[in-house]
């Protein structure tokens, strides 16, 4: 049984139904209840009947912006803070036209990390009930209570922009902007290690990578027709699980998202072997914030940080 947010669910159903009835849009991308516990499934509603099946809860973590690149139809999309910033990024990079979009913004107080819940419950068959700041987890005849904040996704815990940056209509009221935790927590942990320790840490972390590219395909900003990883003339990184090739793929994918990544956590959620890719993408997100004072996707007018420069950009590392 998923935790349900009936208030927002009803609001989204109404908005979607109205947009479709008025023919403002051809389709609404939102969520429906999942077929297994702990996940709500993305869905496309094209009729008022389908709109009545839409849903919202704390398992709507998927970044729906992933479905936008190259679309030509008029589309409404339910967008959390991080999703809305990805949408801004896609518009800025000419992957979708703003006038074709109707953004149903929804303020978000965090999505539950199903991997954390399954790990705590020691089983994927979980019944979860939310009681304010606490959550009861039932599985396998056992029951436990944990703080909600403990089972939220890492990126949600440190989120700085819980309200959508851009929207055409807002579901409900805005919430307090910051999630409360340190957004740099995951990265800070690694930064505190020595250089050798960091190398060993990443060596270990990427040793289970199976080059499935789920992280890349789940990312809304990885939309290249041909990814650098698939280039063969020249071949920048081989296709096997050779540790050098695996690291080159991840280093370069993280770098490709520099200044564009909105820390939505799609990469981590998609990884079938639970690699915390955010430890790499998060470092670049932090550097862009601290070195250039930029946060990706906050405004449609802003030029991406690697598309501008300042006379006084840092260069103490250059001889």
């Amino acid at each position, binding site marked *: 049984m998923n935790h349900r947010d009936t208030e927002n669910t009803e609001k989204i159903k109404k908005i979607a139904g109205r947009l479709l009835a008025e023919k403002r849009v051809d389709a609404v991308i939102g969520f429906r209840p999942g077929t297994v516990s702990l996940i709500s499934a993305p869905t496309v509603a094209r009729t008022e009947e389908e709109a009545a099946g839409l849903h919202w809860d704390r398992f709507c973590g998927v970044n729906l912006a992933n479905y936008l690149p190259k679309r030509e139809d008029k589309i409404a999309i339910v967008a959390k803070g991080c999703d809305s910033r990805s949408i801004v990024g896609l518009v800025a990079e000419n992957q979708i036209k703003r006038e074709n979009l109707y953004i149903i913004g929804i303020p978000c107080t965090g999505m539950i990390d199903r991997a954390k819940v399954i790990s705590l419950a020691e089983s994927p068959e979980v019944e979860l009930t939310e009681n304010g700041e606490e959550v009861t987890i039932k599985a396998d005849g056992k029951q436990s209570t944990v703080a909600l904040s403990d089972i939220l996704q890492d990126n949600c815990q440190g989120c700085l922009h819980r309200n959508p940056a851009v929207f055409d209509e807002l579901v409900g009221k805005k919430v307090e902007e910051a999630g409360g935790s340190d957004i740099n927590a995951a990265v800070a942990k690694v930064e505190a290690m020595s*250089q050798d320790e960091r190398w060993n*840490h990443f060596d270990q972390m990427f040793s289970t990578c199976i080059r499935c590219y789920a992280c890349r395909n789940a990312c809304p900003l990885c939309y290249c027709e041909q990814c*650098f990883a698939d280039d063969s003339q020249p071949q920048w990184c081989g296709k096997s699980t050779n540790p050098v090739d695996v690291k*080159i793929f991840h*280093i370069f994918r993280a770098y490709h998202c520099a200044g564009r990544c909105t820390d939505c956590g799609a990469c981590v959620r998609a990884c079938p072997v639970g690699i915390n890719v955010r430890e790499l993408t998060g*470092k670049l997100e932090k550097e862009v914030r601290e070195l250039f004072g930029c946060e990706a996707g906050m405004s449609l007018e802003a030029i991406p940080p690697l598309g501008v*420069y300042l006379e006084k*950009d840092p260069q103490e590392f250059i*001889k």
Partner: protein
Amino acid sequence: MAWQPKIVAFLCNWCSYAGADLAGVSRMQYPPNVRVIRIPCSGRMNPKFILSALKNGADGILISGCHPGDRHYLSGNYFARRKFALFRSLLDYMGIEDGRVHFSWVSAAEGERFAEVISEVTEAVRAIGPSRRLNKKVI
């Protein structure tokens, strides 16, 4: 034979490469470990080249361009500066040793300075030893 560092230097055509030319024409001495790759501008620099060089066994990498304010293509090096800052930070964070990847601004008139930079880079790489971490020849 004792190990000799292999340094790959990406030099922008209009300043750093010309500076290297000047060093050569002026018969200035500098370590012979460097292999030069000429790029039209430091803005052309792509992190893929750095990773590729490391993968193929380069022990050290130098990227050198025009001084800010003094560039052929007006702003290439300004954009490059931001990219370099991010990528360098990422490599350090991954655990690639300090001293593997270097950046410099060297102008066409700075032949002597070019020789100095090469010596500095070569010694820095010599001090940290052969590159093993992203070297596909050994892994």
